[in-house]
């Protein structure tokens, strides 16, 4: 069956460091993947989209990579700040099927 895994439930890093979150998939050939941010008590908010033929996408301090050989996406936040503390969700799309979300990684940036 299709499976999406975000490598850890929680990640703690120090302010100023680069946070790297991982999303792996199996039995799946996604055409797109998206990353969302979710703050406590709120709905997810879209951050970035990357297509299968794109290796890397950047937006300000955010960078996403998509490796179809490793079946993996990495999400990086450079120069992390306490305000970046949130849960980050990856989501994959293939064909006409709806998005499939991972369980999320809760990031805590410690000042």
């Amino acid at each position, binding site marked *: 069956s299709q499976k999406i895994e975000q490598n850890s439930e929680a990640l703690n890093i120090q302010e100023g460091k680069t946070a790297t979150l991982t999303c792996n998939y199996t039995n799946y050939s996604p055409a797109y993947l*998206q990353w969302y941010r979710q703050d406590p008590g*709120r*709905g*997810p908010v879209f951050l970035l*989209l990357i297509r299968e033929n794109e290796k890397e996408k950047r937006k300000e301090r955010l960078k996403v990579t998509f490796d179809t050989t490793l079946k993996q996406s990495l999400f990086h936040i450079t120069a992390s700040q306490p305000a970046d503390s949130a849960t980050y969700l990856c989501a994959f*799309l293939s064909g006409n099927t709806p998005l499939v979300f991972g*369980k*999320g990684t809760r990031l805590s940036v410690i000042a």
Partner: protein
Amino acid sequence: NAGVTQTPKFRILKIGQSMTLQCTQDMNHNYMYWYRQDPGMGLKLIYYSVGAGITDKGEVPNGYNVSRSTTEDFPLRLELAAPSQTSVYFCASSRRTSGTTYNEQFFGPGTRLTVL
């Protein structure tokens, strides 16, 4: 634009009661979705709609019903509430046209439902 709005924000139901969760979007999006989110379990798709009059089941549709009579509204109905339906429910919408990039989803603030 208000985006995606959901009502109510919180609700407590007794087992066997019924209720409708309301969802409205003002972005003229054709796609709309209902998800439930349980602690540590991520978002699970309940139902979705690709346009007015068209709905389809997601991963966890049992115990729920939906309708889509207008582009703007996508209510979710619980007919016989059960404790297993205790969750946070999110409605979302997106614009999707054939042959183009699948666009991001816009989420509402959620409804926290407890069934006792």
